[in-house]
């Protein structure tokens, strides 16, 4: 269970360029929920995920994962519980190391790393099976360097790396955005399969409304650092892009109107 309370972050606070990315976010995500997060550029989606992962330190608020406030833990300590994939495949994998080495590093998530050989024959078997399951034809290329793979293949490996140890929380930060539509579709299908099989609690940021509607069990819309729409349950499959756009305009207008009210003396 992930509970966010009053999470706030302003970049360049106290300067003329101050930008509020998170404006008091309250959000509860139950175990096994698959939440898609949409919103326009600068809505705070990515900052939200980075704050949860520990890459951005929030100004205020708490981040509770399984009842423990992790808001001020360093990235590496949270990593035991959280798997994350970024938009750029370069960020989530190590280009000069092999597929087997990358997976071996991910398999040690949250564990002490000692002086045992990292890639053992037993592990190679396990990795080969995991790769065969996702069907990219990479099971015979365990010793290929990540840098020699395509963006889609790298992102698929990143997905395996993020989920290998069944983390308590999976964060997908526009992980399809840098892929061509066909590859993106394949990686998304793979994502959905892994999330469903592991019943992983997942937060997926996207700016593709169709994706946000089609996947996941709950949809959250952000605007100007706030959550302006939260749809779950039976209502979620009924959503259409048109309805979402309509809701977005209404909600963002009222958010703007509120701002204006606040500004009026």
């Amino acid at each position, binding site marked *: 269970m992930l509970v966010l309370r009053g999470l706030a972050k302003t970049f360049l606070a106290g300067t003329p360029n101050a930008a509020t990315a998170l404006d008091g976010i309250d959000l509860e995500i139950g175990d096994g929920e698959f939440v898609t997060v949409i919103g326009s550029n600068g809505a705070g989606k990515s900052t939200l995920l980075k704050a949860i*992962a520990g*890459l951005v330190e929030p100004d205020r608020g708490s981040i509770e994962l399984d009842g423990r406030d992790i808001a001020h833990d*360093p*990235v*590496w*300590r949270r*990593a*035991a519980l959280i798997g*994350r994939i970024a938009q750029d495949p*370069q*960020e*989530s*994998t*190590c*280009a*000069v*190391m092999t597929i087997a*080495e990358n997976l*071996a*590093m*991910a398999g*040690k*998530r*949250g*564990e002490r*790393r*000692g*002086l*045992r*050989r*990292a*890639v053992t024959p037993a592990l190679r078997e396990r990795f080969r099976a995991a790769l065969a399951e996702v069907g990219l034809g990479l099971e015979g290329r365990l010793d290929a360097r990540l840098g020699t793979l395509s963006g889609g293949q790298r992102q698929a490996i990143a997905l395996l*790396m993020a989920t290998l140890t069944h983390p308590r929380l999976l964060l997908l930060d526009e992980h399809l955005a840098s892929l061509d539509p066909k590859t993106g579709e394949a990686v998304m299908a793979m994502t959905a399969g892994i999330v469903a099989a592991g019943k992983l609690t997942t937060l997926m940021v996207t700016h593709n409304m169709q994706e946000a509607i089609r996947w996941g069990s709950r949809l959250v819309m952000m605007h100007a650092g706030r959550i302006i729409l939260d749809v779950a349950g039976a209502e979620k499959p009924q959503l259409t892009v048109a309805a979402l756009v309509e809701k977005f305009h209404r909600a963002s207008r009222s958010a703007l109107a509120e701002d204006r009210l606040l500004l009026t003396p």
Partner: protein
Amino acid sequence: MLAQLHSLLVNMLEQGFLFSFLGLGVLLTFRFFRFPDLTAEGSYPLGGAVAATLLVGGANPYLATFAAVLAGAAAGTVTALIHTKLRINNIIAGIVVMTALYTVNLRVMGRANVSLLSTPGVFADVASALTALGVPMREDAATTIAATLVLLIAVAAALVLFLHTDLGLAVRATGENETMIRSLGVDTDGTKMIGLAISNGAIALSGALVAQNHGFADIGMGIGILVTGAASVLIGEAIFGDRSIERWVLAAIVGALLYRLLVAVALRVGLEPVDLKLITAVLLLAALAVPRLRGRLLRR
């Protein structure tokens, strides 16, 4: 002619193996951590100073050499602490430690130069041990080459094995993609410390062995040593490429041998020892520029 070639080759093997540890140390920081670690300029003479001072004080040669390695590792750890805990740029952290070590080295030796001409070191010990075993050896180039080669194989093998362990992978990834390895649960402050300690331990080992081979430790012996190490790494890379850990380690060793050969040839053709740093700088420049120029020519 043949005698000249022979002495060139002997010199290459003797000095090249001694400097290979330096190449391995520089490989770790320069290639895997992707920054020139100037701590080397202090940890190399530190190795020489600690070993020489202990030897003159009557210490066991092996223990004196091992103490030099520990001193170098400590120097690397200090650089890592300054970089990670005080968040100071890694090059600046290296410069700070290098500067401090100049005084430390003078304090350790008590003067600018410690002679070992009348003090037997590890190589004399190896020679007498072998003689006692029925293999008559003197403290000469052959003994040095044999003893250093055995140690080098052991150190290089240990390094390769380490870089394939869970911890070793984390150390490598720290230099390649720190964001990623942190997001996999690794405290990179720790892996940086381990990497810099190993690197400077190896560099200090080179300093300790060279001091015992040359017969003295000198406060100035570390000047330009980082460039020397980097030249070895780059020359080796130009030949072997950077395809795997094994090749990278081999490249650093072969690079050190070739670097020594080139220096020896330069001295043979009439250049003097005072020209050495200029030769080193030119070699480094060539090792950097040739792969690039070759790439540009091939693209045409």
